[in-house]
């Protein structure tokens, strides 16, 4: 059995070195590629990502160093000469079971503290509430208006003119404000998104805010967060919803609360 392995060993080393250099060069130029951060909890997600990147990066490089070094170093001659007989080492195996377990459990613990803050903390009663109703392939945005209550919706009433089937006989629906694809939220103020869908599953994805939650027909999902940056951002659909999935685009506008309130009054008057 003749196998010329010198070249293969060398190629493994070359591939690894070039790959790592290109990766580091790219990372230095682009960070990991995150969009500018615009929410409070997003900072935690980004740091957890970076911590995981550093830990896994070290593991990646160490294991690959061993792999390519062994590939390069331990080439057989094919003459039947013997390798080093080493079938077992309980101690070693226990060490490399325990160490990954400890590292991984610490990542879980840190992650869960943050997860709890994002999802298990009740939004304050005076949070700014907006409803997003997904539809092939637009986002219906609704504000409760001055009364702070959403009017009742009835699917039977849905039509082109009444996209979510708002019930006009419900007094709470009188001052509801409906918009298309435009989500305006206040700066530095807790926001509560109530997310629904009329047809198939969509997913509300606000990449700058590190926010994502599916819009599931038949139920209301929620996500609460606090915007920390003024400006205009993207509202993206992240769950396959049909042929227009790729162009189901909305906008997020973050502005100070007083400006937003004025704007809401204007919208109310226009309706």
């Amino acid at each position, binding site marked *: 059995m003749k196998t010329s392995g010198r070249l293969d060993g060398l190629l493994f080393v070359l591939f690894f070195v070039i790959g790592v250099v290109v990766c580091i060069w790219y990372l230095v130029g682009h960070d990991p590629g995150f969009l500018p951060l615009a929410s409070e909890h997003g900072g935690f997600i980004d740091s*957890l990502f970076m911590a995981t990147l550093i830990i896994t990066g070290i593991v*990646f490089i160490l294991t690959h160093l*061993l792999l390519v070094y062994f590939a390069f170093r331990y080439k*057989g001659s094919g003459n039947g000469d013997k390798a*080093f*007989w080493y079938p077992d080492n309980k101690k070693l*195996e226990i060490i490399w079971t325990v160490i990954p377990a400890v590292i991984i459990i610490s990542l879980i613990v840190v992650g869960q503290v943050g997860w709890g803050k994002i999802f298990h903390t009740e939004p304050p009663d005076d949070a700014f509430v907006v409803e997003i109703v997904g539809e092939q392939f637009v986002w219906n945005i609704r504000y409760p208006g001055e009364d702070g209550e959403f009017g009742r919706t009835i699917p039977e009433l849905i039509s082109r003119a009444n996209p979510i089937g708002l019930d006009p006989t419900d007094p709470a629906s009188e001052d509801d404000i409906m918009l298309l694809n435009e989500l305006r939220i206040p700066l530095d103020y807790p926001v509560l998104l109530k997310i629904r869908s009329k047809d198939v599953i969509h997913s509300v*994805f606000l990449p700058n805010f590190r926010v994502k939650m599916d819009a599931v*027909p038949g139920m209301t999902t929620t996500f609460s967060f606090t915007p920390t940056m003024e400006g205009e951002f993207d509202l993206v659909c992240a769950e396959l919803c049909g*042929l227009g999935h790729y162009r189901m685009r909305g906008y997020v506008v973050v502005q100070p609360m007083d400006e937003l309130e004025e704007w809401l009054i204007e919208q109310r008057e226009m309706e």
Partner: protein
Amino acid sequence: MSSEQASLHVDIEHHKESFISKYIFSYDHKMIGKQYMITALIWALIGMGLSWVMRIQLAYPGQQIPIFETLLGRYAEGGILAPEYYIAMMTMHGTIMVFFVLTAGLVGTFGNFLIPLQIGARDMAFPLINMLSYWTFFLASVVMLLSFFVESGPAAAGWTAYPPLSALSSAIPGSGAGQSLWLLSIALFIVSSLFGSLNYIVTVLNLRTKGMTLGRMPLTVWAVFIAAILGLLAFPVLLAGAIMLLLDKHLATSFFIPAGLYVGDALLSYEGGSPILWQHIFWFFGHPEVYIVALPALGICSEVIATCARKPLFGYKAMIASLLAIAFLSFIVWGHHMFVSGMNPFLGSVFVLTTILIAVPSAVKVFNWLTTLWRGKIHYTPGMLFAMGLVSLFITGGLTGIFLGNAPIDIQLHDTYFVVAHFHFVMGAAALFGIFAGIYHWFPKMYGRMMSNMWGRIHFWLTFVGIYLIFFPMHFMGTTGVPRRYYAFTEFEYTMQYGGMNEFITIATLITGAAQVIFLVNFFGSMFFGKKAETNPWKAATLEWTTDDPMPGHGNWKGEIPTVYRGPHEYSTPDGKEDFILQTDSTGFGKMDKE
């Protein structure tokens, strides 16, 4: 050897087989394994073709590609692929690769080919059911292939077929006849897989030759055995789900569809179902499925590395224990696909724990492979190269799993290209490398001839580098938040910045895909013109290399089935004369032991 087996053996010797009984409705596990392999290879070519279509569309959206119209007809009128059919191609790519290539290509091929040969059996426990298993798979293949040609196009709700999209033809055309055929085909596939799983389990438990204790089985057999148990427990759940979805589609039940849906300007009359229910059912199957695919690949990797590094597999018992641990955990992690699905976030916390724990046995596997290579005498066969490539891909894809499994990070990365990169490394490419490693390594036993070493190595290097060039950049797209399953990245500024990268990935895909021609020529060419193989070309220690002929006939051993005296990896033992000792070698055992 049992008397039944002896009589089977005699039967075969005296009965001259016709072409049909030998090559088509064969009972021989080796022929059935090869049938699975060839069918999976054909499916792999189709699946790869679909990925080319997707990649060309993503790199050059909106441009006329005349060949699209030639190949895809009405799905790409004027050379522009319509968005609904892009999604259909994507759905079929995923379905074909997961079920028909990786599942059938690994479990079907190597489960069948290797189990009896490596445990010392004449054939599977139930050869007839084994034959039926392949032909049910074939039928599933035909139905899936037919769905390309129905009026409304093939299924287009993703390989995960989430309802309501998959249930309503008014939501996307593919959810008409295409999705129904898809569900039917998957149901048939599941039946085939259950036939196979039962057979593998019974064969491993009952038909081991004398001396072949569980603790002496090669890792390939262990891996397929565990994968078969996973299949037996996971696939029926999907079968139930598929039937429920079919009922929703055709008999107006409402398992998965809630009240008040308004689709295509019409209010639907469903009420009471939940789309989340399907996700639980699907992923209760779907996550073990990942390991039904991955475990056999890891088993092949272990065997090939031990053989070609000329060392006993380091920590043989730990390798089995880690397979068992991964298999067990795989049943309680499905919720990690649903962190932002609307599932209760508290439930998410539980799934984080179980999910990330899988990293521990996976890490053990990697460290044990590396230690097996340490101070080895590595023989660079193409099989060995693919096994070592698998180790690298498994590390890369495994580590990115630690990002996705930690729920807060998943909020950002869920359904982005980071996920696409992750599963293509750890499930797609790693399992594919398992198939390649297996084919190169056992080709001499399958066809009695050798594949070309040099072309095998060229194939490896083009494929290995190609895989990294295609999928590694996708991590960066994912962290930026580029969503998956998009027809084009033209609608958002932040996705447009990756135009150049997408073009690069597409070119890499085309080249890597084209490089597979090298494999095909090598494979089919060597079948007829390859150098004649010796019985044991790799000087391996396991049973399949002890057959009388390089390419054993039905019944595997001409004489008695050999007795086994030792473990599967006695390489470079200090007391051996050569650098390997066959499992059948009785040196050092007293006469009493031999009897």
